């Protein structure tokens, strides 16, 4: 395998292409790390809701609704990651 310097010279990679390539890698890393937190948090909410229903089954509807509202809020950081990833792909990368 050739070293990086010769690759750069052979392919005539410009500065803009390096920025675009970094944007692609960055998009993947942004979405990857950003998905960890909301996934754990929302799962915790779901688990506690199951516990709540097993303790007070008659409040089933209220518990489900509260769970969904709470999960929607915890998901917002995941959605920011998605927005940032899409921006990196389609605005910086193009």
């Amino acid at each position: 395998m050739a070293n990086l310097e010769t690759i750069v010279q052979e392919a005539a990679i410009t500065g803009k292409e390096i920025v675009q390539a970094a944007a692609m890698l960055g998009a993947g890393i942004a979405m990857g790390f950003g998905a960890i937190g909301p996934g754990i948090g929302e799962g915790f909410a779901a688990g506690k809701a199951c516990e709540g229903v097993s303790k007070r089954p008659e409040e089933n509807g209220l518990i489900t609704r509260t769970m969904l509202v709470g999960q929607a809020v915890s998901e917002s950081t995941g959605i920011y990651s998605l927005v940032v990833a899409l921006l990196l792909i389609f605005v910086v990368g193009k």
Partner: protein
Amino acid sequence: MHEVGVVQTASFDLGPLHIVFNPVTLIMTWIVIALILITFVWLSRKMRQVPGRRQAAVEMVMEMFDGLVKETIGKDSRRYLPLILTIFIFVLFSNWVGIVPFMQEPTKDLNTPLGLAVIVFFVTHFSGIKYNGLFRYIKSFFEPIPFLFPLNVVGEIGKFVSLFFRLFGNIFGGSVIIWVAYTMLMSSWWTSWILVVLGPFLAGFFGLFVGLIQAFVFMMLSMTYIAVAKNQ
């Protein structure tokens, strides 16, 4: 093995519009609709006051769904029951048709779940406005503090994006795994016998089981989103 991500498309021009569609999805959707029609015409044939065995079984399932919708949506649940059941049955048949050889799931194409999610989106917000009044419903997006309005809108859109991508991702993922397993194991004669064991297992898990779970999840989430918007 490069054809896995490729989608067959056909296109035609209608005036200024250039319309692109996937003929396989279109034909498979028609087949699914025909299957649903045949099944349910057969199930609802010769209905009597005193139900026979078949009618009693169908009535039991219907009552179960009626109870489920009533419990989740509350008031006026009968108005939503046909929509919810249609979504469930269509998604279920679409997911299950893929286990027949040479047939593809319509839900494997992103456009089918997208169409269903758009219907649920409009029904959700229409119900929210209808049951709460336009002003009160819009005000609910500015709670708890007005500053959060953009976040609430993004969260609302994100709900529906994840709704249709969840169905697409599960069905598409299953079909990719089955496709890769078949292509790799069929390539030489001494591995193809593994498929005798593995094939039915993969079809059963990804086709029947995941198909049923995802149809149920799609129905439950649509119903809960409608209920949350309606009973604020």
